């Protein structure tokens, strides 16, 4: 027998309790990992070199207010602007509200320039540009509904009073989000009869260094007009969009804190019970020559073992689980477009494992300290 073997025997002496505690730690850390991943997805949207060049101008009052399209030509003249594209959230219903996917009316001829990281087929895009009632759809949404090029779909307007009938002319792959549908802004203007309005302007800057000055110049250009703008980076824009559903960071942070605190209580309770049951044996170990710190090390190792096993199962389980889920489930479709990648990062796994380490230490401190302090005679008296 070895000391690690002795620790293992002690850990497994009450298998049911061990399994239940392990399960609670595992599930808690699994939940923690998933929540942290969700938080990251919501608060740190993925960014590419191309997306870092994009800024978004919207109405200063709110996203719900529209801008006059006449702003576009003034923006295009501002130094540092490479391209400026109208982009309006259509938010229509395809067949049923649960079949949600993002739909935007855009300047069709500028889409490849603005979303340059996405891959478009030139022939398909040529067909898309020729047909005012055409649309280009992300591959994930194509796969989700089993669509193919040439299919006709109808979107029922909920914000805009029109129901565009669209023909799928092109598919795009790659980019940050493969679930979007883009169609001609002119077509929506024609159907809705409001040709002078749009939701936002998406602007591609000439280079990243130009962005701070560009943002300032755009907003200054429209200051004191009847439609002042608020311009921000794409990343900031997405985060602001997220903030509309509440202070997600605080909410998820609170849930995670409760999870960690509960986990510490559960594990500390288990370790206390396990050590309390063994107080006579601890006295015997001391009597035969084990000193307080050796006993402390045995208890600490057992507690660490429990917490780290739970950590590995929970954190890596979440990592593997999300990978497996991506093989079979379209997370963007399931989450109505809220989550695109839902990627458990090494940073999140390390955070979970650090919590497991802290858990292992904190949960055994009090009972281990008591066992160090307990005299052999006190322990022996408990026997008889």
């Amino acid at each position, binding site marked *: 027998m070895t000391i690690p073997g002795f620790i293992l025997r002690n850990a497994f002496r009450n298998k049911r309790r061990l399994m239940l505690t392990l399960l609670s730690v595992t599930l808690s850390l699994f939940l923690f990992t998933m929540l942290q991943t969700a938080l990251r997805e919501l608060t740190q949207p993925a960014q590419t070199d191309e997306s870092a060049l994009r800024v978004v101008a919207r109405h200063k009052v709110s996203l719900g207010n529209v801008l006059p399209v006449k702003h576009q030509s003034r923006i295009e003249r501002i130094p540092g602007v490479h391209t400026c594209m109208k982009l309006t959230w259509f938010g229509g219903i395809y067949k049923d509200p649960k079949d949600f996917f993002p739909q935007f009316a855009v300047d069709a001829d500028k889409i490849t320039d603005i979303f340059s990281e996405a891959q478009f087929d030139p022939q398909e895009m040529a067909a898309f540009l020729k047909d005012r009632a055409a649309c280009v759809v992300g591959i994930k949404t194509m796969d989700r509904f089993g669509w193919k090029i040439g299919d006709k779909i109808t979107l029922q307007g909920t914000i805009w009073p029109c129901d565009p009938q669209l023909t799928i002319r092109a598919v795009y792959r790659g980019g940050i989000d493969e679930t979007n549908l883009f169609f001609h802004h002119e077509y929506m203007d024609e159907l809705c009869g409001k040709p002078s309005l749009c939701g936002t302007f998406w602007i591609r800057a000439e280079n990243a260094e130009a962005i701070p000055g560009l943002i300032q110049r755009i907003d200054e250009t429209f200051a004191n007009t009847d439609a002042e703008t608020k311009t921000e980076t794409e990343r900031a824009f997405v985060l602001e969009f997220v903030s509309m559903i509440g202070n997600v960071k605080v909410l998820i942070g609170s849930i995670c804190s409760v999870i960690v605190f509960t986990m510490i209580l559960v594990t500390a309770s288990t370790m206390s019970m396990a050590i309390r049951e063994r107080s006579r044996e601890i006295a015997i170990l001391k009597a035969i020559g084990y000193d307080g710190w050796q006993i402390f090390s045995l208890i600490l190792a057992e507690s660490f073992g429990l917490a780290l096993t739970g950590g590995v199962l929970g954190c890596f389980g979440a990592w593997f689980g999300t990978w497996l889920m991506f093989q079979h489930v379209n997370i963007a479709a399931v989450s109505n477009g809220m989550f695109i990648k839902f990627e458990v990062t090494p940073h999140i796994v390390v955070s979970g494992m650090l919590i497991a380490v802290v858990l292992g230490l904190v949960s055994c401190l009090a009972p281990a300290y008591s066992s160090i302090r307990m005299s052999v005679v006190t322990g022996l008296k408990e026997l*008889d």
Partner: protein
Amino acid sequence: MNADPIVQIRDLTKLYRHGEIDVTALNCVSLDIAAGEFVALMGPSGSGKSTLLHIIAGVDRATSGQCIVQGTDVGTLNETELADWRNNHVGFVFQTFNLIPVLTAFENVELPLLLTSLSSSERRAHVEAALELVGLADRMRHLPRQLSGGQEQRVAIARALVTDPTLLVADEPTGNLDAHSAAEILALLQILNRTAGKTVILVTHDPKAAAYASRTLHLEKGELLNGSSQSSVVSSQ
């Protein structure tokens, strides 16, 4: 028998504090125990015999006085030194056996050796020798629950012996055993005393058990009674 004292106790006093009241467990006890002696400590409950045994074995500390065991004043050692000293010099046998239930007889006996620098094969040799000595070589892989009370106590004696201590202390080792098993354990302690030269200190209520010792000391109200002296030595049965 070597007549050099292995235990020298001078004016040993132990007070326990219960709330505001000090209870005297031992009052100015002085005695010598020679190396190779088999001493029985007798007395009524609360007489201080277990307290005296605990102080000699280094698991409790005296309030005043001196306890020198094998030339070491155990009262001057810190907790870590004391634990190490116990591992090297004292073997414990308890009334309730106190084996670790999840470990086999072999592993229970091996426990004190895990603190030493012995290799795995050396530990194995020591454990097998100890279990052989107590007649349990064929029960090495048994868990405590698979052993009888007498066998469990034999394993406990093997655990006490495995580090080859000079001093064996036994606190009511037959208190939980039937008469037959008790006689076997006492005989075993006697053999260890006589053939292996172990100094044995036995705490007991039972005059029959005390009869196995070469000397019986009587304690009452924390004091060693005059006339505690040589007792008849019972041959192993």
